[in-house]
C-alpha cells in the first residue's frame, strides 16, 4: 500500500502549476498574433470554398451537357431509324455482285445435251 494520499499529490501538482505559471506566455500578445493571422486564415478558407463551388458548378454543367447531348443523339437516332433500315446497304454488298454474272453461271445441263442437234424428223406410218 502507498502512504501518499490525494492531498499530497495535489500539493505536488500545485507546486508544478505555480512553476508553470512563471513561464506562462502573456495571453494578450498571443491572442493578438492569433487575431492577426485569423483573417488571412478565414480568407484562405473563403477562397478555397469559392474554388470548390466553382469546380462543383463546372462539374454539374458538364454532366448536364453530356446528358443533354446524349438525349439529343438518341432522339435523332429514333427519327432516322425507319429510313436508314430500308435504304441500308451492306458495305460489302458489291462483292456479292460479280461484273459478268453470265460467265459464272453454271451451264444449263439439259440444253447442253441437245445443243446443235437437229430435231429428228420422224416418219410416221399412217398405214
Amino acid at each position, binding site marked *: 500500500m*502507498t502512504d501518499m494520499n490525494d492531498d499530497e499529490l495535489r500539493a505536488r501538482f500545485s507546486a508544478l502549476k505555480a512553476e508553470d505559471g512563471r513561464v506562462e506566455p502573456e495571453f494578450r500578445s498571443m491572442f493578438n498574433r492569433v487575431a492577426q493571422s485569423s483573417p488571412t*486564415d478565414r480568407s484562405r478558407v473563403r477562397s478555397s470554398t469559392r474554388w470548390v463551388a466553382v469546380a462543383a458548378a463546372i462539374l454539374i454543367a458538364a454532366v448536364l451537357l453530356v446528358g443533354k447531348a446524349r438525349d439529343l443523339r438518341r432522339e435523332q437516332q429514333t427519327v432516322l431509324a425507319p429510313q436508314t433500315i430500308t435504304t441500308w446497304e451492306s458495305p460489302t454488298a458489291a462483292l456479292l455482285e460479280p461484273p459478268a454474272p453470265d460467265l459464272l453461271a453454271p451451264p444449263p445441263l439439259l440444253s447442253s445435251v441437245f445443243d446443235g442437234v437437229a430435231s429428228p424428223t420422224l416418219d410416221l406410218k399412217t398405214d
Partner: protein
Amino acid sequence: MEQELERELERLHSESWGWALACCGRDRDLAEEVLQSAYLRIISRRATFNGDSSLRTWVFGVIRWTARTELRRRLFWIRRHTDSEGANEVVDMSRGPDVIAERSEEREALIHALESLSRRQREVLQLVFYHDMTIEEAARVMKVSLGSARTHYDRGKKSLAQKLEHGVDR
C-alpha cells in the same frame, strides 16, 4: 460574442497553458505553438462549441487534439527526413537540456514519475490533480468512457504515488 469568447479564453489561459505543457511533454516552445494554434481554431470557428460540456472541457479537448496532431505531424516529418536514430533524438528534444535544468528537485521528481506512466494515466492525473477536474470531466476531455477514465485514474495514481515515494525505477 467574439469578445465574450476572448474574455473566456483569457480567464482560462493559465489553465490552458498548463494543459498545453502537459500535452507537449513540457516543451515550452511546442506548448506555446500548440496553444496558439488551438486559439486560432477556436476563434476562426474551425472548432465549434456545441454546449455538450463546459467551455473549459471543450477548450481542453481542442488543445489536446491540436497537440496530438502537431506531435504526429512532427513525428511524420522526422521519420521522412531522418533515420530512426535521428528521429529518437529529435523526439527527446521535447525534454531539452534547458528545460531539465530549470526543474526543481520536487518538480523534477513529479515530472519524471509522470513521464513513466502511460499517456492516458498521465492525462487523467493531470486533469484531476492539476486542473481540479472531476473524473467525468477528464473523461470528456480525453474522449474516453467514464469507466475507462476511472481505471486509468486508479492505476495511474497508485503507480505515481509509488514512484514518488520509491523512485521511478521501482
